[in-house]
């Protein structure tokens, strides 16, 4: 995980751009997905029988790129180009450019409903592939999230797992409260976990269900870097040279 965090911090530093705390918030979840859960071949990322992952909170793109690059969906060195004019790797992922990025997200409340469409289409096509999506608690303010939740439960899409990166970033604006109760009320199965405990994450993502599953993952925005953790100042800011040096020391020391 140290290596992945380093990739994120360095890319944001070089680009002078990036949502670093969001990327660190979702990193354990993304790593477990791509390392242990998803049936997907980096050399053949569009194979029809693959499992799908859609990063609905597209601003955590740096986390996705770090994991996809490490898993060799594209050369890891490409992350140094993050955010540059001709780069494939932008502030939000573009599915037409990035191998392994299943959807172009960025505007909140789109990726989850698209995942419902993918899950429904896979059922129509009698495929056994699974669909995972990751939303944020801020994103859960969007009405389309709850439209999609209603629809997925109605069609009993048990091939769909929605992970909520619950880092409480929207508590200061419009709190979404007890998300377990809300998803249960929408007839989803819910699982509550520590979103930085990889054994918990694996268990929650690998246990089958008769219904769509919402995994409510308690996370810390900026996890791993004390001065960044839950600090809104860092939401969309890149580390300067001196900051980068001290952050790299901090993550190595853990």
């Amino acid at each position, binding site marked *: 995980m140290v290596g992945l965090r380093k990739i994120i911090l360095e890319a944001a530093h070089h680009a002078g751009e990036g949502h670093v705390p969001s990327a660190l918030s979702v990193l354990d979840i993304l790593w477990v997905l791509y390392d242990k859960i998803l049936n997907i071949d980096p050399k053949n990322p569009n194979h029809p029988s693959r499992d799908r992952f859609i990063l609905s909170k597209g601003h955590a793109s740096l986390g996705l790129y770090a994991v996809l690059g490490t898993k060799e969906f594209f050369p890891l060195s490409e992350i140094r180009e993050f955010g540059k004019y001709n780069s494939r790797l932008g502030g939000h992922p573009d599915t*037409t450019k990035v191998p392994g990025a299943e959807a172009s997200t960025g*505007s909140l409340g*789109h990726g989850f409903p698209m995942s419902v*469409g993918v*899950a*429904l*289409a896979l059922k*129509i096509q009698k495929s056994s592939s699974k669909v995972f999506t990751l939303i944020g608690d801020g994103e859960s303010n969007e009405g389309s999230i709850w439209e999609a939740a*209603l*629809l997925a439960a109605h069609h009993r899409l048990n091939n769909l797992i929605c992970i909520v990166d619950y880092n409480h970033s929207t508590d200061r604006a419009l709190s979404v409260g007890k998300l377990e109760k809300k998803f249960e009320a929408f007839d989803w199965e819910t699982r509550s976990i520590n979103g930085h405990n990889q054994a918990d994450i694996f268990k929650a993502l690998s246990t089958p269900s008769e219904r769509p599953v919402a995994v409510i993952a308690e996370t810390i925005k900026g996890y791993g870097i004390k001065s960044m953790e839950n600090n809104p100042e860092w939401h969309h800011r890149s580390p300067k040279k001196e900051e980068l040096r001290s952050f790299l020391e901090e993550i190595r020391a853990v």
Partner: protein
Amino acid sequence: MSMMRKQFVQTTERALEKNEKLALVLGDISVFGFRKAFEKFPDRVYNIGILEQTTISVAAGMAKTGLIPVVHTIAPFLVERAFEQLKDDFCYQQLGGNFVSVGASYDYAALGCTHHCPGDVEILRALPGMEIVVPGSAGEFDMLFNQAFDNGRPTYYRLSERENAATHPVQFGKAHIIKKGNEATIVAVGPALQAVLDAVGERDVTILYYTTVAPFDAETFKANCTSSRIILCEPYYQGGLASEISEAMGRRPHTIDFIGVPKKFLTHYGKAEEHDAALGLTAKDIRRRIENIIDRPFPKTIQDKEIMQ
């Protein structure tokens, strides 16, 4: 049920039969009309509910997974409510899908402004890659849909209760030449053709008939525009194709009149024909405007105050 809407049911039923990738998604309308399709293709026909934003995203998810979605609901909810989903989930991601609306402009006059949608074509023209089809009759819808529904691009079909008397052999992406003449060039879009035909009578004008608005067939326009006096007649907000025509005219001096729905809330109810009369969109009104543009001297300079007024 209007002729075009009945045709939509028949055309889609046939397409469901022929193409196993087609999936129909209804926004809780036309459910009775499609009752046979629900029985015959239970896996591919959905009454998805009243959630337009998610419906468009779900359709994009289906398109990602190899299906060809056909989404159907009333124009303002399909286009205006779910506009960003059309932009991000279909156009930006370059996915194919079909969006079939009913309730064009003020077809549903008595239901009021929430159910009017004269702005659909104009706002969809703002989306790079969105194709816009405005059939003028049920038969034309059938031809155009069959030509385009599986072309891998997002395509909007504007169905209307208003129809032209005749069906023309239209082609997707191409303008159809109704007649050639010298006094003026009239561009008529979809169901606006009927009033134009009633208005021109025997006048010696060119009529170019467009059922695909985007992409705009500039080639046919350039090759057949016989006069620098141009009248653009559209069934939605006026002036929709103005910039395309102006660009196609290039450096050729021209004068142009836009006939269409004025940009204001139509706060009366009643019937669509009553709105036509109030808005100056009857064949008689259009004839007067055609004569006006033909008979007025062509402005010589931009300072020609008498003419410019």
